[in-house]
C-alpha cells in the first residue's frame, strides 16, 4: 500500500472547524506550485470539504485497471484529489453511516486509489479520535514515511481537544511533525487594527508544553477564505500575505524531510 508515495502527511485536529481542510488544500497547492507531485485524500466522510474548496464539485471518479483514478486539478496531473464528495449524487446528501461502514470506505480509499508516483500524499481528516482515525492510523502505522501535522486555533476550548489528539498520535505511534496555529489574529480591513478574536499564542504554548515543533501562525484572512471554492493557491494569488509565507516555510521543512529520507 502506498509504496510509490515518498511522504504521507496527515492533517489532524481534535477540534472541528479549525481549518484542517483549508490547511490541507493550501498545503497541497503550495507543494504543487513548488513542483512536487501531490495527492490529496479527503477522509472526512460526513463533511467532505475538499471538492468544494478546490472547485471540483461536479467531477467524477473513474475506475481504471489499476484502481480508482483520482480527479486531477491540472492537466499535468500534478495534484490528484480523492474524496467521498465525488461519490455523492447531490451536494446536500448526507452520509449517515455507522463506524464499520466508514472503516471499509477509508480502507478502500487507502488501498484502491491509483495515485501513480507521488512526492507527497496529504490526508485531510474529520475532527475527533474515532473510527475514521483509528482506521487511518491502523493502516498507516506500517508506513515509515508517515507523519502528522496538527492544526489548532488559539483559544483554550480548541487547545483542550487538540491535546487529546496529540495523546492519540502518541498512543498509536504516529510521529508528529509539528503544530500550526490557524485563525491567530484578524486585521480590520478599515483601520488595520489586529484583533485576536480567539485569543492568541495558544498553539505556541501547546507546542512548548507537548515538546513539539511549532510550524507557524496563520492569521484569519478573509481573502484566503474567499479562495475556497476557486481552487486557487494562496501562494500564487496572495504572494505577500502572511499565509503564503507560513505555507512556503512549511513546504521547505517538508521538502528537506523527504530529501533526508530518500
Amino acid at each position, binding site marked *: 500500500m502506498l509504496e510509490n508515495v515518498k511522504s504521507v502527511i496527515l492533517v489532524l485536529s*481534535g*477540534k*472541528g*472547524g*479549525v481549518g484542517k*481542510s*483549508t490547511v490541507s488544500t493550501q498545503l497541497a497547492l503550495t507543494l504543487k506550485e513548488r513542483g512536487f507531485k501531490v495527492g490529496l485524500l479527503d477522509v472526512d466522510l*460526513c*463533511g467532505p*470539504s475538499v471538492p*468544494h*474548496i478546490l472547485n471540483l464539485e461536479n467531477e467524477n471518479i473513474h475506475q481504471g485497471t489499476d484502481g480508482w483514478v483520482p480527479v486531477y486539478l491540472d492537466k499535468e496531473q500534478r495534484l490528484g484529489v480523492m474524496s467521498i464528495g465525488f461519490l455523492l449524487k447531490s*451536494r*446536500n*446528501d*448526507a452520509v*449517515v*453511516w*455507522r*463506524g*464499520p*461502514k466508514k472503516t471499509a470506505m477509508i480502507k478502500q480509499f487507502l488501498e484502491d486509489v491509483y495515485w501513480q508516483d507521488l512526492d507527497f500524499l496529504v490526508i485531510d481528516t*474529520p*475532527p*475527533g*479520535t*474515532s*473510527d475514521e*482515525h*483509528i482506521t487511518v492510523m491502523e493502516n498507516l502505522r506500517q508506513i515509515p514515511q508517515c507523519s502528522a501535522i496538527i492544526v489548532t*486555533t488559539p*483559544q*483554550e*476550548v*480548541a487547545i*483542550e*481537544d487538540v*491535546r*487529546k*489528539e496529540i*495523546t*492519540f498520535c502518541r*498512543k*498509536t505511534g504516529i510521529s508528529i511533525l509539528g503544530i500550526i496555529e490557524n485563525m491567530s489574529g484578524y486585521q*480590520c*480591513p*478599515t*483601520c488595520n*487594527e489586529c*484583533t*485576536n*478574536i*480567539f*485569543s492568541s499564542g495558544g498553539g505556541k504554548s501547546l507546542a512548548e508544553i507537548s515538546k513539539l515543533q511549532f510550524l507557524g501562525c496563520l492569521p*484569519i484572512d*478573509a481573502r484566503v*477564505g*474567499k479562495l*475556497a*471554492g476557486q481552487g486557487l493557491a494562496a501562494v500564487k494569488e496572495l504572494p505577500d500575505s502572511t499565509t503564503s509565507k507560513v505555507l512556503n516555510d512549511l513546504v521547505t521543512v517538508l521538502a528537506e524531510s523527504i530529501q533526508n529520507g530518500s
Partner: protein
Amino acid sequence: MSNIPENAPNHCPGTQSEDAGKASACAGCPNQNICASGVPAGPDPAIELIKNRLSNVKHKILVLSGKGGVGKSTLTSLLGHGLAARFPDKNIGILDADICGPSQPRMLGVRGEQVHYSGSGWSPVYVGDNLSLMSIGFLLGSPDDAVIWRGPKKNGMIKQFLSEVEWGELDYLLIDTPPGTSDEHLWGVHYVAGAGVSGTSDEHLSAVQYLSGAGLSGALVVSTPQEVALLDVRKELNFCRKLDVRVLGVVENMAVFVCPNCKSRSEVFPATTGGAAAMCEELEVPLLGALPLEPLLARAADSGHSYLQLQPPGSQTLVAMDQILDKIVAACESTS
C-alpha cells in the same frame, strides 16, 4: 419485499431474509443479533429505560451541526444560561454528548468537578441553582486523556448518559453533539425520540417509528456564514429530514465582526453564497437569528464565565440571543 427497514444500512438483506443478520452488510448494524436470532425480539430495553428516565423532562433539544467549530457548544452554554436566567423557577439541563471533545465543563466553569454515582444514577454537576450539566469530561482523569473509541462503545456511553443521569424534574434538556452525521447522532435521535413513545413493541428498532411519538422537541442547527460550513450543514439538515427530526431552526454564528477600534463591520468568514439566510430559504427551515463574532464571547467560553453576567453594554450578542430564545421557547411550547 418491503421488510427492509427504512433506516437500515445499505445492502440490508431484509429482516425476513435467510441472510438476515448474517450478510456482510449486517456487520455493525445494531439489530444484527436480533435478525440473526430469527425470533422477533422485544423492544430494546434501553428505550424503555430512557423513556422512564426522561419522562420528567419537558423539552428535549438537540444542538447539531454538520460542521465542527461553528459554536455548538458555545451556543448550548449561552442557551443554558439564558434559559436559566429567564426562568428562575424552571430547571435546565445540559448533556454534553461530544465524547471525543467535551467542551462544556470548561465553558460552564466546572472543570475538574466530580460526578457521583448513586443508587438512582449519575448526579449531574450544578452550574447554578437551576442549571445542571453532565459530560464525559467529568469522567476523564487528565485533560490530555483521549477517548479513542469506535462507534459501538461511544453508543454505549451515550445510552448510559441518557438512561442513567438523575436529572430530576427538567423543563429543558439541551443536548450538545459532536460534528457530523454519524453514530452519536443516530443513537441520540433514536433513543431520545423513543423516550416519548408509549408503545415500543416492534422487532426492528426503527428510529423513524419511535420518532412518530415526538419525544424530541426538535433540533437546533448551528452554522457559520461561509459555504464550506454551509455545505456540511446542508447535510445535517438532510439527516434531520431522513430521520424525521423537526428542525426548530438554524442559528448563524460568527456572522459579522465589529472592530473594537474603529467600530466598522466586516465579514471575517465571507458569506459568498448568501450565508445561512439563503440556505434556510432554499431548504425551507426557519432562521432563528445571527450572532456576531465577538472576542468577549470567546474569552467567556475559555474562562468559564457566563457571558450574560459579563453584561457587556449594548451587546449585539445579547439582543440576538434574546430573540433566538423567544423563538425557541415559542417553538417548544407549541408542541407541548
